[in-house]
């Protein structure tokens, strides 16, 4: 890891202004409608300063935090996903011509984005999405156009929400890779490190001095304290095998008795990538747009193929989601689909908690 630098609080203001000057649109955690989400920031006071979140299954509230604390809110309603994998976008257009029709690709309009305050779990999730959309030689051009110039300023967590479980997924609470700059908030400013050439260049322009030994120690103590205090966990031992073997475990039915099949968990999950592709015709039939939208394995249509639906019940769909996320994903992409951000727990209207479901299946297997 690169050298630890001391970043006084006013330098954060400079960083935001500098990123705008470098041509980035700068986004950070901003309070809106009772939750924090990435939104445009021009100055530090646009951020959710002096606020704290309380999170539990099915419940999120914003409240007052410590005076002067800038990154007191752990993680918000949305991850980075919507900014790179757009919730809805036109991929191509087909126009009728005198003879036949002409297809043209619609290039995404993508100003370079800079994010301030990205948590380790969300960086890990971005790496998972990169594997999906930028795999080998097969690149999703729309994702890539938005992703390639992004500048990421991570914030190491000094506090976790009760729904967080990054420690057991080995993704947090410290950002170790995938960022340009990382920050650890202290009473007086930040300890910052750069994680890329672009980050180093920005740090150099900010003219930061080396961090003092005591700062480095207390930054580490904060992160370690966060990790040690984490309340939730998901035991990943033997996971693909356990879930495949337990396909008939009665717990799936039990979860389905609570699950609304509303799709919220998959929508907020920073790694879920399912999408539907639909053609939208103009009324006069002379033009058609091919549109990609987020989709979810919880919708009934998702498993509808010619003449049959192979996941007709909610228990089939809940099992599909969890088994893909925690097991098949590993076979498919070499990594778990879960980074432990806890969003699916918080933003499930009925508070279904995947860590509790997996623990229940592990505790009462039907196959040994």
């Amino acid at each position, binding site marked *: 890891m690169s050298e630890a630098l001391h970043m006084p609080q006013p330098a954060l203001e400079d960083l935001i202004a500098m990123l705008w000057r470098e041509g980035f649109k700068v986004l950070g955690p901003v309070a809106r*409608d009772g939750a924090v989400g990435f939104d445009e920031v021009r100055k530090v006071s646009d951020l959710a300063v002096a606020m704290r979140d309380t999170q539990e299954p099915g419940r999120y509230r914003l409240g007052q935090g410590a005076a002067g604390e800038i990154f007191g809110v752990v993680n918000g309603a949305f991850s980075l996903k919507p900014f790179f994998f757009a919730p809805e976008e036109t991929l191509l257009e087909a126009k009728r011509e005198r003879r036949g029709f002409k297809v043209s690709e619609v290039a995404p309009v993508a100003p370079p984005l800079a994010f301030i305050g990205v948590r380790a779990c969300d960086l890990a999730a971005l790496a998972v999405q990169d594997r999906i959309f930028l795999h080998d030689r097969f690149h999703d051009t729309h994702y890539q156009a938005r992703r390639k110039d992004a500048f990421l300023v991570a914030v190491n967590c000094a506090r976790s929400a009760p729904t967080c479980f990054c420690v057991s997924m080995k993704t947090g609470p410290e950002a170790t890779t995938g960022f340009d700059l990382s920050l650890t908030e202290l009473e007086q400013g930040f300890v910052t490190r750069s994680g890329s050439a672009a980050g180093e260049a920005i740090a150099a322009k900010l003219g930061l001095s080396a961090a003092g030994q005591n700062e480095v120690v207390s930054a580490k103590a904060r992160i370690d304290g966060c990790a040690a205090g984490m309340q939730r966990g998901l035991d990943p031992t033997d996971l693909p095998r356990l879930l495949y073997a337990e396909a008939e475990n009665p717990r799936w039915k039990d979860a389905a008795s609570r699950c609304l099949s509303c799709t919220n968990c998959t929508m907020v999950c920073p790694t879920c990538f399912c999408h539907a592709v639909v053609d939208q015709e103009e009324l006069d039939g002379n033009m058609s747009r091919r549109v990609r939208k987020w989709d979810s394995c919880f919708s009934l249509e998702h498993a509808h193929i010619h003449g049959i639906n192979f996941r007709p019940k909610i228990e089939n769909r809940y099992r599909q989601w969890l088994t893909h996320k925690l097991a098949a994903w590993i076979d498919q992409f070499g990594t778990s689909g879960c980074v432990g951000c806890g969003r699916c727990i*918080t933003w499930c209207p009925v508070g279904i908690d995947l860590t509790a479901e997996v623990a229940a299946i592990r505790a009462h297997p039907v196959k040994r």
Partner: protein
Amino acid sequence: MKPRAAVFKFASCDGCQLQFLNAEDELLKLAGQVDFVYFPEARSRALEGPYDIAFVEGSITTPDDARRIIKVREESHYLATIGACATAGGIQALRNWADVEQYRRVTYPSPEFISTLSTSTPISEHVRVDCEVWGCPVDQHQLLAVVRSLLSKARPVLPAYSVCMDCKRRGNVCVVVARGAPCLGPVTRTGCGALCPAFNRGCYGCFGPADDQNMESFARLLASQGVTGDDAVRRLRGINGYVRPWRETADAIAADKK
């Protein structure tokens, strides 16, 4: 030749057929593609059937309605219901739980001139329906998409998943989780693009039940938010209350209370 289309009205407020006329930018294109030969709200010309496409608004609430819808069906090659009234019985289906005879006597000075049924029922309880366009009112884009599909001789496909999916695509903060507000979104079919949650209010269920939903769990969710008894019944019976999953749930809650 352009297909001959007709728009029929039964017990309804006209809001759904107005969605055709509200389609300002698309109106010329629409007129270029479809010949509305019977559309009393839009033009005085009223031609006889048969019709290629009939759009039916409104529910069946009188003996005359019940006879007329059969004639409409006979005259129409393709019949699409538009809106909550035609598709689910509408808000006026509240009469299905009430004493209509008493309403008649109390409301009208000369009740003997009022001939009405004791129920408000969807078109599909009377005749075969080829396509149901949900909503109170219907969404203009969905309506025009149905027209376009029919012009292309394709089966119209309307999404039937929950409002939540569009709510999240739109980037709304969930009112249930962040505010504890009741919201019918998880059990409601999308169509509006999650309009109400975008304005920080819970969904009212204008588009009827999603294609699959867990009403027992949803009723427990409402109860955990303090929405029980009459309050819960009213929410479910509001706009599409007579449609089965919601009717049964509301009836069960009402029976529980007694």
